[in-house]
């Protein structure tokens, strides 16, 4: 029966040492670098496919084609990964290695490999041990404390909150004293409407100018006159 999803190998599963499940997921894991291609024995994949192959099925040709295509891609990927990187060969500056150095490297690798075999045997011998208490249940009446939650709480308690970003504010270019001086100069020729004083100023300077005017009025250097609430504001020299 043809697969309605158009994926002929969607029901093909494999059982490897490093992975067990649908073949398509295996391909996805390899492509996402979650599984190393070296760890996947390609000949076993072929054997699994041949065992699962049903020549009587309607989509046999489609399945064979898909499998041959993906298996060929895996072979190519594995061979490319095992080969030296093309850049190394092209730049012509590949590090020269003497036979003695090569022998030393191979000896080192051989030792590690034998160590790996001994380790595998140790793991196999000890695989059946289960610790005496995997997870102790909380004693009756005691609160069950999740260590991860304690860790998270401690991290929050001891960490400083992040400083808010202030880059968008830009450097401070105006001071109260500077605007007070501007107001003093404007008042030399008589009363000045606030709107006229700040006409060419940006919002920051307007605000600081207002603060400066309030401060000067408080100190008695000028008078603020506003006939009605929210009406026009005029700055007048002090008597």
């Amino acid at each position, binding site marked *: 029966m043809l697969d309605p999803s158009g994926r002929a190998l969607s029901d093909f599963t494999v059982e490897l040492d490093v992975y067990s499940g649908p073949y398509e997921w295996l391909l996805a894991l390899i492509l996402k670098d979650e599984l190393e291609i070296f*760890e996947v024995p390609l000949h076993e994949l072929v054997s699994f496919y041949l065992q699962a192959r049903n020549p009587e099925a309607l989509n046999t040709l489609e399945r064979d084609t898909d499998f041959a295509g993906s298996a060929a891609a895996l072979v190519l990927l594995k061979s490319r990964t095992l080969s030296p990187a093309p850049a190394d060969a092209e730049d012509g500056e590949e590090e020269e290695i003497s*036979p003695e150095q090569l022998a030393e490297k*191979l000896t080192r690798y*051989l*030792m590690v490999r034998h*160590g*790996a075999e001994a*380790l595998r045997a140790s793991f196999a011998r*000890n695989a059946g041990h289960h*610790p005496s208490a995997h997870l102790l249940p909380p004693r009756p009446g005691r609160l069950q404390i999740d260590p991860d939650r304690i860790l998270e709480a401690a991290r929050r308690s001891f960490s400083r909150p992040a400083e808010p970003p202030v880059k968008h504010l830009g450097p401070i270019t105006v001071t109260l004293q500077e605007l007070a001086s501007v107001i003093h100069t404007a008042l030399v020729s008589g009363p000045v409407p606030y709107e006229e004083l700040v006409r060419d100023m940006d919002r920051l300077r307007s605000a600081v100018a207002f603060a400066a005017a309030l401060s000067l009025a408080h100190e008695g250097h000028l008078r603020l006159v506003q006939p009605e609430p929210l009406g026009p504001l005029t700055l007048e020299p002090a008597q």
Partner: protein
Amino acid sequence: MNETNGSPEPPKAAHLVEAVLLTSARPVGVGALSSASGLPEAAVRSSLTDLARRYSPGKSGIVLRNVAGGYLLSTNPACSAAVERFRDEARPAPLSGAAYEVLSCAIYYGPLTRSAISGVRGVNSDAVVRNLIDRGLLAEVGADHESPGSPALLDVTEELLIAAGASSREDFPSLETLVSEEELARVRKRLRIVGDGSPAELPETP
């Protein structure tokens, strides 16, 4: 309970050690056992010898293991099938050959960086390392500040020692004993060091 005077009998030293071990899922060192039980270390060691005799594979479904620098009560591997059925859990998927090689690098050359592991194996091992860190068998234990970028240093964990049944790193066979002189001679012969110096047939690589 002592029936003659009604007061409870003080527990034996081995009983104290046994009780502490029973409640721990991690190996407990002699110092910690001594501290918990209030016994001198010599008494703890003597108790452990008694317990090891009592909890030997031929006598009990529980065994006393000396792993990762401490002592751990575990089920007898001979009973593992029953335990796994009862717990309704499967053993984790076995490690690949590449994974054992990476662990072997960490045991014998660790702590070392990812690139050093790849250097020994001759292939990129980052994916294998990531998998082993996820399984808790490898861990980042510091940084190599002398290398550019201060890459992380990797070393084996207590989990690995427990899984391998090793008390410490010294329990693994030394590197020198792993490869025989004959095998080394074969490698050198294949490389034709004595001949024209051109590498010929190489041993099998991963």
